[in-house]
């Protein structure tokens, strides 16, 4: 409202916390959201790792981890993993699309307040980056025992993680509200 929000970052003079953050162009964020959406389905459904023991092989996907947690009698863990690796990124992507798409075309999204609130909170629960590190650790742990193969899913997953990460990095509340108020 007052000035160009992307112009500079503002830090609190007392605690040096970042009060206003630089924003990427809205079109860039929109592109990231679209790219992430494309990656989403293959990333969570394709096998991430394949573990071979003798003639037997077991493929692990993000969704199969949910199944086994549930199967072992830990639905809460299943839910947690679902939330952090599937639902939260998905919501993040979808809400980003719903926000950035109209804003990019100078249209006010109807449910801006709800969308914004969801996006604001869901950011913290996207843990794709941690999941990628977990894959790496699992790989190290299991490769000592037997043959372990990377599945196609891991590539997709790493990309999804990167897009999601950048989407989060580019999120700027000030910029969004400015765009909202500037729009027709």
């Amino acid at each position: 409202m007052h000035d160009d929000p992307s112009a500079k970052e503002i830090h609190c003079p007392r605690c040096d916390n970042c009060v206003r953050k630089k924003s990427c162009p809205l079109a860039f964020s929109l592109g990231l959201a679209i790219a992430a959406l494309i990656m989403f389905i293959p990333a969570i459904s394709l096998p991430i790792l394949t573990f071979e023991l003798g003639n037997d092989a077991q493929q692990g996907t993000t969704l199969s981890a949910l199944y086994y947690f549930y199967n072992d009698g830990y639905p809460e863990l299943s839910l947690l993993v679902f939330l952090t690796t599937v639902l939260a990124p998905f919501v993040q992507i979808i809400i980003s699309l719903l926000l950035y798409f109209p804003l990019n075309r100078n249209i006010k999204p109807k449910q801006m307040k709800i969308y914004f609130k969801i996006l604001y909170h869901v950011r913290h629960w996207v843990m794709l980056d941690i999941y990628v590190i977990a894959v790496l650790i699992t790989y190290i742990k299991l490769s000592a025992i037997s043959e372990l193969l990377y599945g196609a899913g891991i590539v997709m997953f790493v990309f999804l993680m990167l897009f999601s990460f950048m989407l989060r990095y580019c999120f700027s509340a000030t910029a969004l509200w400015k765009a909202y108020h500037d729009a027709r």
Partner: protein
Amino acid sequence: MTHDDLSMDKAFCLHCKHLSSAQLHICPVCNEPLRQRKKNSISRTWALSLAALCFFIPANIFPIMKTLSITTYENNTILDGVFYFYKNGEFFVGTVVFIASIFIPAVKMLVLFFLLLSVKIGSRWRREEKNSLYKAIHLIGRWSMLDIFVIGLMVSLVQFGEIAVVTTGYAAPSFAAMVILTLLATESFDTRLLWDEKGKK
């Protein structure tokens, strides 16, 4: 005093990062209720941290993962997993797991208690460093989820009937609960409280 003046009549909307008059009940930008400080920050943080601490104990002493194979039947606690890596010379990975699973939650809770106590006594000692400490735990806190993901992957990969099966140990929900509670506790703490002077409303 200028700072206090600033805080007296201004409210910073955490959602849209907009600074507006404290007299307004609603943020003019995003229509969120305006607060100078996070709602019930201190008691929430206390409650959530203590709850996390409760879960910290079972999470660490009970097996988080069970390994069944033709030769072994093992219950692995988090520390067993760390030792496994150290024994096999994977010092880096061992350290990562240790930091993520034990060190971070513990430090997080300690830091939160420290900050809460600081606020309680109204200490003005090194407030900037305390703020940095908070920022640090806020940043790294999420990484405690690592162990949950590793278990999830292990469980889904190692399913070989009689030969080798990995299943979830009953400490895993406690661990997850602890992680989530520390995350929420961190989230509910408001660093601005560090600058609020005791008795000064």
